[in-house]
């Protein structure tokens, strides 16, 4: 019942949040002194031609009218047309969304699967050499800029050792698109070569993206476990001689996960932002790369579309996180 109320409550806020997000993005992107029309029209265009183009895209109208027109379009499922690719934004986004999703989910999976156990072990062996080494790694994970790490990875693994591809998502055309996730599509198609090829391409971008996220998740898990280890119920379980592996991995971890799960939700946000950089370095044909191009070209509709879709994604992820928390913690 509580969960249902929570979901409905969040859904009620879904639209206002997105509208707010749209207004902010719209304002910021239009304040930047750039003229996409002049850029698009080319150097030899006459003033009349530019004005005509401006009128065609509605850029001649006052800003607030443009915004309202855009929002009206969105409610009808029309995200406008990219002045750069000349295709509907929604088509562009949909074709690129799976690439980013695949990368993001793999990064979350990796950072969770590695980060949580490492966090637990760091807490259990706190202030030992193991803990100190992990701390150094996590601090660097948070401190190193992803584009720099990406380049280092490329130099080491792709250039020097030559065990991974340098960039791109797959060699050749890839499997027939069903879900858009190459790993899944290649399994469906029974195409083992595509699968290993796609997986090999995923390694470096995933590592780059997952590294800071893993550091965050590890620190939070460690803190949560330390908190729980000092609780009375752990003392009781020890006094009653429960096996220590059960105390740590069943009872303590459950408590620690509450903080970690919240963090995973937020990490999704960091990762989506991270894809912008990582996709650019690895030439990954996803939303991040699209967003970079959109911003460089002042392609307003594309910027808005990217913001809208990532914003919605982020809200949905955090809703799911809240529901999971409700399941983990019976007290609310």
């Amino acid at each position: 019942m509580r969960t249902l109320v929570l979901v409905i409550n969040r859904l009620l806020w879904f639209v206002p949040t997105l509208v707010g997000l749209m207004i902010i993005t719209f304002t910021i992107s239009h304040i930047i002194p750039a003229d996409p029309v002049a850029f698009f029209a080319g150097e030899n265009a006459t003033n009349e031609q530019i004005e005509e183009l401006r009128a065609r895209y509605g850029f001649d109208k006052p800003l607030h009218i443009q915004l309202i027109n855009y929002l009206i379009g969105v409610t009808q499922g029309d995200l406008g047309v990219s002045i750069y690719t000349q295709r509907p934004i929604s088509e562009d986004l949909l074709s690129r969304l799976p690439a980013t999703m695949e990368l993001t989910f793999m990064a979350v999976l990796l950072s969770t699967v590695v980060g949580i156990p490492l966090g637990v072990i760091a807490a259990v062996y706190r202030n030992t050499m193991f803990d100190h080494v992990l701390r150094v790694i996590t601090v660097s994970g948070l401190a190193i800029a992803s584009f720099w790490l990406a380049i280092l990875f490329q130099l080491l693994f792709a250039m020097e050792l030559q065990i991974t591809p340098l960039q791109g998502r797959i060699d050749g055309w890839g499997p027939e698109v069903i879900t858009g996730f190459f790993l899944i599509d290649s399994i469906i198609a029974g195409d083992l070569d595509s699968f290993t090829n796609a997986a090999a391409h995923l390694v470096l971008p995933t590592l780059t993206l997952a590294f800071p996220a893993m550091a965050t998740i590890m620190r939070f898990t460690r803190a949560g476990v330390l908190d729980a280890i000092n609780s009375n119920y752990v003392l009781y379980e020890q006094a009653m001689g429960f096996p220590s592996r059960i105390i740590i991995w069943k009872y303590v971890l459950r408590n620690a996960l509450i903080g970690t799960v919240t963090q995973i939700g937020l990490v999704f946000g960091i990762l989506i932002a991270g894809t912008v950089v990582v996709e650019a370095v690895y030439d990954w044909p996803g939303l991040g790369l699209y967003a970079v191009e959109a911003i460089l070209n002042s392609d307003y509709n594309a910027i808005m579309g990217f913001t809208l879709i990532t914003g919605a994604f982020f809200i949905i992820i955090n809703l799911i996180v809240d529901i999971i928390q409700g399941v983990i913690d019976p007290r609310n």
Partner: protein
Amino acid sequence: MYLILEQGEVLVTDPLLKVRELEVSFKTDAGLTKVLDKVDFDILPAEIKGLVGESGCGKTTLARSVLGILPKNSAVISSGTILFEDTDLLKVPEKSLANSFRGRTVTFIPQDPFSSFNPFFTIGSQMMELMKWKSPERSAQDTSSRYEASRKKNDRKRIIELLKQVQLPDAEGIMKRYPHEVSGGQRQRLMIAMALLPEPQMIIADEPTTALDVTIQAQILKLIRNLTVERGVSVIFTTHDLGVAYEICDQISVMLDGKIVENSDSNKFFTNPRHSYTKKLLNSLPMGQASALKKSKDDDGPILQINNLSKWFSIDNVWNKRIGWLKAIDDVSLEVRKGEILGIVGESGCGKSTLGKTVMGIHPLTAGQITFEGSEIGHLKPSEARQLRRRLQYTYQDPGSSLDPRWKIGRSLLEPLDIHTELSLAEKQQRVEEILAAVNLPKTHLDLYPHEISGGQQRRVGLARILTLHPSLVILDEPTSGLDVSVQATILKLFSDLREKFDLTYIFISHDLSVVKMFCNRVAVMYFGKVVEVNETKKLFEKPQHPYTKNLLSSIPNIGGKRVIETFTPMGAPPDQVEYLNKGNNA
């Protein structure tokens, strides 16, 4: 060593547990601090042995040493032996201690049953987890994590059987619930059941009734005593409460500064204490005579008058729509006379703290009037109330915790004067110094931070902070709870000195009836949101009128008298404080 059997036979027997010359230290920033100093401690089979002492004396450390659960990083066992049936536990590897000793041969009842349950798992699943590893059916050598269906079934039966024995009737229902969904008394019953489930030879109970109300305490003590005597299980029972020790123990060991200073039979202990510390402990007990404090000088009339006061809390459904009321205070009328100490007693949840906070305006009242020094204060706006608040003060359980850790004591003491008065700085400083002297603290403390002084001194500073405004009425909310008896005696003495000096009236909110009996002129008894009885302390304790008062008084351990666990009978179901609104009726 001998054991007297029921038929009068005398059986020579060896101790079950022999602790010899045990020395335990803790690593601190200042080096090693010795917590146990050459401790010798014995317990016979089927004996209930009290380990009595004030906080910090080492009783918990001794109990944990026996269980082998001292903090690994900070505790150092430098010498001694812990012999359990001739096995030195200090030489047994941790793995086999955990597997076949802890939770099997020796079990544990914790002080706080609420936080000792894992909040995320149902009670039943935690009991089954215990049985998975510690069921009497499982071999002590077994280290596998198998749990056969047949054993599971038998273990479940055992649990349900034992839950009945600890008087939890709806066993199946309780097992499905989470720890926060059952009451404090029920949780401690569950802990007792869990301690008995593995059929241990010894139970270590660490202050198991300290967190409980006194009527619940009487029932829990009775349960522990009966069930362990029935099964011939030894019990090490640590407590700071001599009354509790009197109720349940056969033998008593007194600890002071990491040493055991007296071992004695519990009857002799109370009639004929030998060690000077034991005598001091017994003397500082708030026992015997009712308050000998002088009463209000003349009848100056009431300083505070409460008429038909109600404080109801709204119960909302998930849509934030009101579906009922929790009547925390319901139609209470009470008069506080100038210069007196009025005790308000009752068990947790009875509304005594809510009453104090409603009078202070911390909770807005639902209905009724509060008249303080002749003016109505119950319906004032916060700004109007501010002037009055100076004369009416409230302290939390630990007034020291209200000090800002980043402020020097002097600044904390000046702050109320800055807010409420127009005095010059010199006048303010003079007043602060006067007050500090009154709570027996040196002037030099003004330049210290709270963490640089002891907890007891922090309490004094907290009190001084209230007194700088020269209040006439101070509400003391559980001011002695959690204190050792000797500290408690000192702080009560301070309250009564300050009352003389500053002409104060006190409302003394407490769950501890023996303190109230010693300290208050009059006592009001609260029961589920209502004041059921108000009377002079002496009359109330000698001739209680209301059945609840009678019941409450009959549950207090009475050292030297008949044991409460033999005489006390709990009352029936309490009245319901919650009133649900009818559907469609949005009154």
